[in-house]
């Protein structure tokens, strides 16, 4: 074990892992985080706390994660390289470890153009692969990027994202290989709506033997409505929402469309369970956390396993 992470233990003992996520509030109320956490608590192994996702200012992922921890939930600290240079990043990694975080997800982050502060200057001193390497070096070599030694190392389980639906497609698996070489231990993928393309990517992952070096958690997002599906198709960077999926939701009565969205998410999970090398799912129920217990129940993922 490289950490005290509950998620790492679940994956290492060979169980199919379930993670979800919680977007911090746009204000100071800790109650909203606790509420989301409570909704997810019994259905998942760990909960990601997002870091100013889509470049919209929110409570920091570090503080929101502490609130989740106080409620007995294991957070995965998302950290983007958009807003901090290597000094601030390493400082926050130390702080996270001191506060008892066990998991970190290394991301580059959405460009500020998509957020509420388009006039901001981004940082990008490091990219997501540098961040993976930074955490690994701090943990395993006990050294800062600058070379000095740490007094006490952060024992963090290292995660990152992968988007099998972005271009250039052939390079996607090479990029995953670079992340693995840098030290990533688990991957949460972009939302999977195009199973065919995901399966092709997984084949490439297996061809390179990467599925034996990293735990892949497939991203699942339930669609609430046709409007949401269209929005994700057109407005969210890096999404691949096939027309057939939108047609399927459109094909049922309006009041039954959310139910259909849940059904599709459950079917996706069942398909993912059958793919060699997929070791879990990451359910992103955007502002619809109350459906995570329903989805996990229907997909046969409950109760969550104990760890030794």
């Amino acid at each position: 074990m490289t950490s005290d992470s509950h998620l790492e233990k679940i994956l290492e003992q060979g169980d199919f892992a379930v993670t979800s996520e919680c977007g911090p509030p746009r204000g100071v109320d800790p109650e909203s985080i606790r509420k989301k956490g409570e909704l997810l608590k019994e259905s998942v192994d760990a909960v990601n706390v997002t870091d100013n996702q889509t470049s919209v200012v929110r409570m920091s992922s570090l503080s929101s994660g502490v609130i989740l921890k106080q409620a007995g939930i294991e957070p995965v600290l998302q950290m983007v390289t958009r807003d901090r240079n290597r000094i601030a990043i390493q400082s926050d990694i130390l702080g996270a470890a001191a506060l008892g975080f066990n998991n970190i997800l290394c991301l580059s982050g959405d460009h500020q153009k998509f957020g509420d502060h388009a006039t901001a200057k981004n940082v990008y001193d490091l990219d997501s692969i540098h961040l993976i390497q930074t955490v690994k070096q701090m943990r395993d070599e006990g050294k800062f990027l600058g070379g000095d030694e740490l007094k006490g190392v952060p024992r963090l389980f290292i995660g990152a994202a992968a988007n099998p639906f972005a271009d250039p497609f052939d390079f996607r698996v090479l990029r995953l290989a670079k992340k693995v070489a840098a030290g990533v231990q688990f991957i949460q993928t972009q939302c999977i709506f195009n199973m065919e393309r995901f399966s092709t990517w997984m084949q490439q992952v297996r061809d390179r033997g990467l599925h034996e070096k990293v735990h892949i958690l497939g991203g699942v997002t339930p669609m609430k409505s046709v409007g949401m599906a269209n929005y994700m198709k057109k407005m969210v960077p890096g999404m691949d929402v096939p027309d057939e999926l939108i047609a399927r939701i459109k094909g049922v009565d309006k009041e039954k469309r959310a139910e259909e969205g849940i059904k599709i998410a459950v079917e996706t999970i069942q398909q993912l369970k059958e793919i060699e090398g997929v070791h879990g799912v990451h359910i992103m129920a955007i502002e619809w956390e109350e459906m995570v217990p329903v989805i996990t129940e229907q997909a046969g993922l409950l109760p969550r396993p104990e760890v030794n």
Partner: protein
Amino acid sequence: MIVGNQKSLAEIKEIVAPYKNLLILGCGTCVKTCFAGGEDEVATLSSALRLGFKKDGKEILIQELTIERQCEDEFIQEAAENINSNDAVLSLACGAGVQAIAKRFKSVPVMPGLNTTFIGILEKQGLFTEECVGCGDCRLAQFGSVCPIARCSKKLLNGPCGGSKNGSCEVDAETDCAWQLIIDRLKALGQLNNLKAYVQPKDWRSSNAGGPRKLVREDHII
């Protein structure tokens, strides 16, 4: 070249409003090539200002002059008499030119008529593109001569982010994904293996992040 874009007439009018005798000083190199601050632009802007101020009932005497380069003493001295005989200078050079003039003429206000935008090229008629940020440590050989620092919206060094789609950047469909260009070119050159290796975080000391830079050429010091 250094690419610049002329400020709006309204902004220029506001900047030069306090002065009665104004020299509009053009620069005959980069900004001439990008149609922002050469002789022709000096003439057009001068006419527009004269007309604009006349309409406002304000008197202003505008002198026009364009020198080869506002960043070199040899040429700057050609403008000395004109600069000293006016209340102020509106320079149509890049930011370096404006400051070079200001440093050498301490009692004359020197103001910018352009917004200096980037180091770039004329990609096609009417389109200039940024190609270089002058980071002081060129790695183009590694990236198939496409700069990820200047041309990737996130300055990523280890491959494309998850927002690359059909060759476009997630930030703007009109912007090419630099990483798609890097991969395509390295593939064509048979050098795709270049991208397998982990690229270390950049040492920014050679860039502007390390503070204002100086280049000392011992071999040129007399």
